């Protein structure tokens, strides 16, 4: 199952691209798959199996915290966005 994942500039250092594709039935599986393709991927956004609290993951336009968190189901055609907080002004 191919799901599009949009990442911001900080993660692009790991992926080399702004949009990557991964496989998995849930967000958690998808992230694990991406970590295989792009070593170090999970380390940027997770710690001890939990998402960093300055990183949000959106399934389409909804924060997965308000869905089923890492167990949120994904399907073909969905877009996942991974967004860290930015501090610049």
């Amino acid at each position, binding site marked *: 199952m191919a799901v599009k994942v949009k990442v911001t500039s900080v993660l692009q250092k790991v992926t080399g691209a702004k949009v990557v594709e991964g496989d998995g039935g849930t967000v958690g599986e998808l992230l694990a798959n991406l970590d295989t393709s792009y070593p170090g991927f999970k380390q940027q956004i997770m710690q001890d199996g939990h998402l960093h609290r*300055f990183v949000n993951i959106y399934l389409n336009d909804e*924060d997965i915290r308000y869905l089923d968190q890492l167990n949120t189901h994904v399907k073909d055609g969905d877009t996942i966005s991974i967004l*860290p907080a930015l*501090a610049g*002004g």
Partner: protein
Amino acid sequence: MDHGHLHIDRTTGVIDPATRRAPHTGGSAMPAVSVYIPTPFRKFVGNRQHVAAQGADVAGVLADLDRQFPGFAALVYGSDATVPRHINIYVNKTEISALDGVATKLSDGDEVAVIPAMAGGADASASSDGATPRRKIGALTAEQVNRYSRHIIMPQVGPSGQRKIMESSVLIIGAGGLGSPIAVYLALAGIGKIGIVDFDTVDISNLQRQILHQNDDVGKPKAISAKETINAYNPDVEVVTHQVPITSDNAFEIIAPYDYVINGADNFAARYLVNDACHFLKKPLIDGSILLFEGQVTVYLPGQGCYRCLYPSPPPPGMVPSCAEAGVLGALCGTVGTIQATEVLKLILGVGDSLHGRLMLYDALSMEFRQVRIRRDPHCVLCGDEPTVTGLIDYEAFCGGAFGHTNEEEQKAMDAAKAAREQARV
């Protein structure tokens, strides 16, 4: 000299129907007069020098003009629904204060002339309105009507909306990349009072993006440079400079006097501090942040979610680089800051759909705008159902020192502020 009263809603400029004369219908004896329209008001009456109107007295004629050209009365009447002293109304060349004010009776064929003074005259005396001192703006001067004419001719703004803008106060955190376009557009819009919080001085590396500052300003305190630029754009704006780092000790005092807060801070500690202070003071916060080619913008309204709902805690030091470390496209600041300025103007005017509940994501490289939904988190430690953060905290400790400092001076000022706080605690 009392010119008499009509009851006009100060915010909408609408005349109370009870005091509005009935529209003239054919056959009645309502006198028909010619009204001379001064140049600055002509754009509101189809660019005519004279307009025909009917009314038993001057107030009736003004009400008729307001029916024909909605918003006209608000140009003439002050906020207390009297004719302010800088506008003179003449009936056949006699000023009405020498007659019966707006109750001066009219006859067929009379000429009424509305003549505003060409400069000055706005009654901007501040008065105390609860915790927030609000300036009261009377009728706009001729110069102001001209200056803001592109606002005033829009139905969503009009004279009353422009007056709301001029009665508002906005605090801008940071006179840097975001603070610059925010301050410039708010100055041009005629915001009554703009506060600038920035303790830094202008560095030549700021000039790639910070349009408040120019070559000659290098070395000058940013708040002072900002004030000079704002007043060069619009001398009507009152600028208050806060040349200190915003800290847990001064945040309430700095923020309390303003209606709205716009965040253009360059570090996480200030972002959490400003968020928390706005929550406790119930101030709307227009938030924006930038890095490289990306920006994020949203609006937090009191009691309806906050920055901590979106990002419960800051990244550990080094996880998210600052603009100083990673860079930022200068023009990106303009895009994001201008959205922030737009959002505060919409809140002031009460028009449109605010970004509240939505996080706007801008990617300049792909030239894409996207939105994601954000909401109040019931588990939020600040604004959730069972809050544990009940006052301002030590934000430097909270952010683990990850401030994305732009220079040594900032670090020194923060260290000094921290030392002063620690001393105060002893």
